[in-house]
């Protein structure tokens, strides 16, 4: 059980940039130790992707549960979370005091527009990876406009997208099949 915790703490500590960056390390650690097989891991991956929340935590809960049921799930989740929790806590305690520092302020004036660029690029790359084209492109445009311009909560966008997907597949999709 302690090994389980240490393994996931290591995964939590050594993956900078979050989520998908953690994946190869998780796979190597848990498959190499024989906790789960390669096929099981690929299954867990696709399931964890379909769930809301933090992907890396979700997959660690799956693996933990598979190995040691509820206590395993808790230990693995805690292991994944704890390193980043402690580091960010330290920064929260510390950063609020240096944020007014003139040099720190200058550095962050440069960083902020770059952060926006880091988020803007995946808009294009994700749209391409998903192969969005034609009228489907209206969906992200409408979703972004409703949030950005009309101030809709993203919660409504998520719910509408789920219902829209279900409606399209089972109402329109079925009709197309019949014709």
């Amino acid at each position, binding site marked *: 059980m302690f090994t389980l915790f240490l393994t996931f703490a290591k995964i939590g500590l050594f993956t900078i940039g979050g989520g998908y960056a953690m994946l190869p390390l998780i796979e190597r650690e848990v498959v190499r130790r024989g906790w789960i097989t390669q096929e099981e891991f690929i299954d867990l991956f696709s399931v964890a992707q379909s769930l809301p*929340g*933090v992907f890396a935590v979700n997959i660690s809960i799956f693996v933990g549960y598979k190995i040691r049921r509820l206590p395993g799930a808790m230990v693995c989740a805690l292991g994944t979370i704890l390193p980043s929790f402690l580091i960010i806590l330290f920064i*929260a305690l510390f950063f609020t005091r240096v944020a007014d520092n003139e040099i720190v302020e200058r550095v962050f004036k440069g960083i902020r527009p770059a952060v926006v*660029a880091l*988020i803007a690029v995946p*808009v294009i790359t994700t749209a391409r990876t*998903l192969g969005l084209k034609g009228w489907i492109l209206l969906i992200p445009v409408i979703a972004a406009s409703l949030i950005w311009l009309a101030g809709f909560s993203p919660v409504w966008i998520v719910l509408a997208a789920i219902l829209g997907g279900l409606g399209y597949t089972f109402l329109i999709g079925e009709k197309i099949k019949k014709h």
Partner: protein
Amino acid sequence: MIWLELLYVYLKIGLFGFGGGYAMLSLIQAEVVDKYGWISLQEFTDIVAISQMTPGPIGINSATYIGYTAIHNAGYSMSVSVLGSALATFAVCLPSFILVLVISYYFVRVKNNKYVEAAFVGLRPATVGLIAAAALMLMNHENFIDYKSYIIFAAAFGMTWKLKIHPILMILLAGVAGLVLYS
């Protein structure tokens, strides 16, 4: 009451945060910056930058940082504010924790489930919109203070997109650019 609000907001983020880190950002920002005003837009942008450079997923990092800041700004001591960190981090994980346990316990077939697949027909394109919304919401005068900001943005955009520069290196370069340009 701040503690219940924090719990409620992060449970909501944990339950509706589909599509990974960047797609969750618009939801987090809508709640903690726009609705509750726990932190400023600049501070939020700074957390995203810090998240990119420190271990762990952004969902966890933001919960830890904002949990602390929200409680601290409400007038509590530093040690009590740590509990805010713990509460928000716990809350963001709880919904999917329960979902994972239910799926594992009842052997619910999520993979190749026709309802899940159908939901994702809508969710996948919407995710792109959620990421775009996150970028657009951050593109305002608090983060873009003058023409130099636009130059940094354009350079970072080009370097990330075309040259595939690593995010950490990009942030470091932008920090140096800020240090030089704003001296």
